[in-house]
């Protein structure tokens, strides 16, 4: 089911959370709303779900304007950041909730509900936890139960608010891949909110980068990374270095797109080594350039030739391999 977002504006008091948002999400797509906190991404997600009412604009599901539809009638699955599992119900009852709340005529029998719930619990690989209460589960388990609960009413659209935000790094990675696989299997139109660019890049088909209530760019992970529409997008999608060339002229480049040399080389600038950090597969070298306070970071493979016997205080020569041009695109030099 496609989602069409047209001219959405939303104020909270004097604060404008969303400004003229237009967005088309294709059926079956997995889209990430990416941005820093306060950029309006969660408000947009809640408006799609019907939990907030926009000041102006409309939401259209598959050609049908649902703007005036109540939350209950939109048939969206929603996974909350902190899961919002019903704390006084077992895992089973949580997942069964949506089915049990159906009007009497549409409500399946308890035995049908039970088999449906176990099917979903198997899908999220947690059938053995059916009799536990939410507080007895780990964060990752709660997350998957929340997902099973949302899927129980067979929504056409799945919305996830910071689905991995409250989990530790390792669990987050596993769940991310799992969610991407699940999306392949059940093929819902899914939208998730995140402030983690790595998460968006890894999971989403398309990324919507938001900042201060407006959409900065919409594109595939490769597009937003390679052709950022603005300096904001460039900064937000990864670490970046700023090299001041003149009073009002600077270069932006990523730490891993730097060529390093121990001896003076063509187009390379001299810099003093301030810190050397081995980070596993790569090593990060922090450099101080004359004429600017801001430090430059370079990340190279740990066996890179320029690193052999390198100590702090030495002089190293560097050159950005790819910079963000003022026109927007990343240019390889």
């Amino acid at each position, binding site marked *: 089911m496609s989602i069409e977002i047209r001219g959405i504006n939303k104020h909270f008091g004097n604060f404008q959370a969303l400004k003229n948002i237009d967005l088309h999400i294709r059926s079956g797509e997995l889209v990430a709303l990416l941005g820093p906190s306060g950029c309006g991404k969660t408000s947009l997600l809640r408006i799609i779900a019907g939990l907030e009412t926009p000041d102006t604009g409309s939401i259209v599901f598959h050609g049908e304007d649902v703007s005036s539809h109540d939350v209950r009638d939109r048939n969206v699955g929603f996974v909350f950041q902190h899961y919002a599992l019903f704390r006084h119900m077992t895992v089973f009852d949580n997942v069964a909730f949506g089915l049990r*709340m159906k009007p009497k005529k549409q409500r399946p029998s308890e035995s049908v509900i039970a088999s449906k719930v176990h099917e979903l619990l198997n899908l999220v690989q947690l059938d053995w936890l059916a009799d536990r209460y939410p507080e007895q589960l780990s964060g990752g388990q709660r997350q998957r139960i929340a997902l099973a609960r949302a899927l129980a009413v067979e929504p056409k659209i799945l919305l996830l608010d910071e689905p991995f935000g409250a989990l530790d790094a390792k669990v987050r990675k596993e769940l991310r891949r799992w969610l991407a696989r699940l999306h392949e299997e059940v093929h819902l139109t899914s939208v998730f909110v995140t402030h983690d660019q790595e998460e968006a890049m890894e999971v989403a088909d398309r990324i919507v980068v938001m900042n201060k209530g407006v959409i900065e760019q919409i594109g595939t992970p490769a597009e937003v990374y390679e052709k950022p529409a603005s300096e904001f997008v460039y900064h937000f999608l990864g670490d970046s270095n700023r090299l001041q060339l003149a009073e009002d002229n600077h270069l932006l480049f990523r730490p891993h797109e730097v060529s390093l040399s121990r001896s003076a080389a063509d187009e390379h600038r001299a810099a003093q080594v301030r810190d050397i950090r081995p980070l596993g597969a790569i090593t990060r070298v922090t450099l101080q350039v004359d004429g600017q306070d801001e430090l430059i970071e370079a990340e190279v493979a740990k066996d890179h030739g320029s690193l052999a016997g390198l100590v702090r205080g030495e002089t190293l020569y560097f050159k950005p391999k790819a910079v963000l041009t003022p026109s927007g695109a990343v240019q390889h030099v």
Partner: protein
Amino acid sequence: MSIASATLAKDSAVRASVQRTPAALILIGLAWIIFAVVLLLPLYIVVTQGLQRGLDVFWNAISEPDAISALKLTLLATGISVPLNLVFGVAAAWCVTKFEFRGKSLLITLIDMPFSVSPVVAGLIYVLLFGSQGVFAPFLQAHDLQIVYAVPGIVLATIFVTFPFVARELIPLMEEQGTTEEEAARLLGANGWQMFWHVTLPNVKWALIYGVVLCTARAMGEFGAVSVVSGHIRGMTNTLPLHIEILYNEYNIVAAFSVAILLLAMALVILLLRQWSESRLSRSLVRDDE
């Protein structure tokens, strides 16, 4: 009482393995002394005074017609005011914690007012409104209605003083729990009533029960406000606390303490009811369907 003893038993088992410092021993000792002087000693005195002439005298004191009528009135006032304040308290807490609106802080302050106003003043408010010189006096006289110095006044005064108990217990808890579980219920297709019954109510049931217990205990024991509006007509508008005062003022010490034992026993029954409901409700309320 049973909660306290159960907790103490559990704590002492835990503490047995912990090294006690002299400071801890002194503090524990002080707590016991204060507990004994402030709570146990008065209870002991009430019971011994009431029973000092034997069970027959005690029984006569609590079964004479005036005492029975006071008991009935107390139960009536409690029976009306507690359900009303239960409904009001849940509605007020729901409205204050789940919605944003103008004048919300004023409403919260107003809910608390019966706590801050002296019960005597509360009683006087009703006399000024419904008494023979009161604002509504012409209307009431025209329709031959008696509110002050009659049962309706006592019920009204009881409702007023026990107004905040349920809401006060619920508001902090509901505020802390937020609204996401309700939102989740809505998204899963629950209507307003289903959401309230299956999600909101089970989440606050202990606070609710506790609020009702406090409300009931206070409704049975209320003295000040009821005293002002009652008129102290024996056998007509006397509640148990007022009856105890009258007996005491007449130097009928044994009868006064006998009725006090009755009131005390009722309070204990309420506490036991709470204990019982805790174990039962935890199983039943959740699974109940509409």
